[in-house]
């Protein structure tokens, strides 16, 4: 979060917050970005949300860049520019690390979606520790890693809640994004966006807000 009046430049910087999202097509990671964008927009915060799907219908790398707070804004976040990374797949998380700002937040839903070659034992897949090490290196002091294990998802009517909504709630509650948007701002969008599954989504959202800290212990 940036909100300082710099003596050197004479600029009054707006309150800005940049989020870089990565995952695999079909996981709903773009939906996380859409929900935050919509909530911010309804609140009158300037938004630019730039999803990149490429050729992936399902199963390919997807990313999105969400920039809040600036009326005139370019869609792309520079390297070392994002206040927060939200990643929903362990290996794909690595592709976002260079965009995180030193001192920022790194939120990972630790799902493993193994490509076929990995399943067949023909290609390596990174360990969680490798991802953490790389993230720590980029985050520096003051940066925080929040890791949501897949098994921590609460159940709703017999099946795990939607991981993207849960992850969004954790990110909102445990990072400075919560200073821009309140849970009520996001919940309002969740209630109106889909006709079906509202209870399930709200349950996931509330559970994520109430979750214990997922902050990974830094060395």
């Amino acid at each position: 979060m940036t909100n300082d009046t710099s003596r050197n430049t004479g600029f009054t910087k707006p309150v800005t917050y940049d989020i870089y999202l990565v995952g695999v097509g079909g996981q709903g990671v773009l939906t996380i970005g859409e929900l935050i964008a919509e909530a911010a927009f309804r609140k009158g915060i300037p938004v630019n949300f730039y999803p990149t799907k490429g050729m992936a219908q399902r199963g390919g790398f997807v990313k999105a860049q969400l920039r809040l707070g600036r009326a005139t804004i370019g869609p792309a976040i520079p390297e070392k520019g994002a206040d927060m990374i939200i990643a929903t797949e362990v290996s794909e998380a690595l592709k976002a690390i260079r965009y995180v700002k030193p001192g920022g937040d790194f939120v990972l839903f630790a799902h493993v979606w193994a490509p076929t070659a990995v399943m067949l034992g023909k290609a390596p897949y990174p360990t969680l520790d490798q991802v953490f090490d790389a993230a720590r290196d980029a985050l520096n002091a003051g940066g925080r890693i929040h890791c949501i294990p897949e098994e921590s998802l609460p159940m709703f009517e017999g099946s795990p809640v939607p991981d993207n909504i849960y992850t969004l709630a954790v990110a909102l509650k445990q990072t400075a994004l919560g200073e821009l948007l309140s849970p009520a701002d996001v919940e309002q969008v969740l209630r109106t966006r889909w006709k079906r599954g509202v209870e399930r989504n709200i349950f996931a959202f509330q559970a994520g807000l109430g979750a214990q800290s997922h902050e990974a212990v830094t060395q």
Partner: protein
Amino acid sequence: MKLMTGNDALAWGALHAGVKMVAGYPGTPSTGALASLLAMNPPGVHVEWSVNEKVAFEVAAGAAWAGQRAMCTMKMAGVNVAFDSLISIAYSGIVGGLVIYVADDPGVSAGMAEQDSRGFAIMADLPMLDPSSPDEIYRLTQMAFDLSEKTGSPVFVRLVTANCSSYAGVNVADNPPVWPERKPVLLHDINRFTKAGSAICMTQHRDLIARLEKAGQWIADAGLNPLRLGKQRGLGIVVGGMVDSYLEEGFEIAARFGFIPSDASLLQLKAVHPFPTERVRALLGHCDTVLVLEELEPHIEKGIYVEAHRLGFEGRIVGKLSGVFGRIGEYGISHVVKGIGAALDLQIPSDLFQSKTDAEKLAAARPITVCAGCPHRGTFMAINTAIRKAGFKKNDVMVTGDIGCTILGMNPPFNTVSTEVSMGASLGLAQGYVRAGVTTPVIATIGDSTFYHAGIPGLLNAVQHQTPLTLVILDNGWTSMTGMQVNPGTAEKFQQSGDTRLDIAKIVPALGIDQFWIVRPFDLEDTTKVIQNALKLPGVKVVLAREECSMPAKRRGLEAGQIKVVEENCNLCKLCIIQTGCPAISLGENAVVIDENLCYGCGLCAATCNQDAILVEEVTL
């Protein structure tokens, strides 16, 4: 204010400018504009996906010749297809208003060329607007129609991936102007609408140049390329299109290193063609260093060199030609900061926007493959097996590929397809391999929409010249890669009201091809047998592999079958994963696991299993 994409904003802009008809062909990242209009279904406005971009352009141009406001939409590769007609209609000019929307893709997020369509505006002598934010797209699209009508010229609106697919707030008018119904006009003027003879063509060329000049005047009067002269005579910045949106932030950062924004002059180009000569001359007269910020090709920069030469400008021009920037990829904040640093010799740390890339190297490779339930999976598997069973090694047989989902056959586990060039090129290339003296079977693969778009002429050519090849048409009934648009072959019930379906199964025999088979790619055995047989026969052979794309089918609640894993039979041999590469299958502890949400029940995994561990149960619909 509404939150929408740049593509949506363009659609609203056209609508609020009184557009009467819109035609386009899907192509990422441009698709959303016409899709948005189709979803709105505005009364009195005809909106269609045309068979290809050339036809879309001609349909729109015809409507504009009849006096209406019309628009066509396409990705940059589509302009190549439309360009034959485009040059000619540029010469003729238009009667109503005509906007050509083209989306470029710097950074190649959609997998084609980094083609800079501004070069086409230069070649065609047509004005081009190059807005930055979605809100600006909405406003400039409306202005493009005015410009077109005031000058009698088609006008390009060029967007790039970053702005056409970005969502941002757009001030859409609550009470847009009401456009009176226009009666179509019929002008019979061969001097304008034909190219019969050099006198006609050269007169049209003269008129074309005059129209462009008039457009330049209109653009200047409208203030589309604002110039602000700085307090100092030092730095002048020229920024084109999308890059404009990064300036404010870039200025703030550069200011930390000694840059004083109010000292600098700034020329923001929203209309990149015709070249804003007067504005550039004013800037050159005021500055001793000029920084040019434009993505892809140095079109603006080269124009500045020309004016600099004419003025005897002795300062520096900083940009691509001076070696500071390259011609590849998207621009961002870092380019603004780097450019200012280079222009003013500021000490800016080189790692300000540069992080380590080691982490990415650890990421698992994730080659994109066809979706779970994709019928193409069966076709690729069948082609591979047919080649082997016909007695050939895979590498001894050329399988050419085409644009769309069919190109996913290039990736593992199939590795079937070896070429991807442009719409329809699979057919021409295949004939070239045959004529080069290749004696093994040559196979061309093409999807349904691509076949209609540009495949048919290639097939006609093969028939006329009796070039022996096997064409496999992968017909899934939709233009799927771009998000399941309707094409001429889509089932009748999904065609727009009043439209009709053209069946490939009727087109192929009508071309005089009697070696023609229709197969269902979920029936792996039969599909393999038919292709294997075709490979042995002489002449032109066509296999129509037909099964609906599983994405729209699943959305309608359909499934091809129910897959059941018999755990006690599975020996974890992984054959199903190796052969299908289906994203719905993963390895469990004792047996493979099928993701029920992803699975469409195509049964191809069951067809590969030799342990009776995967069963398909038919579903009754």
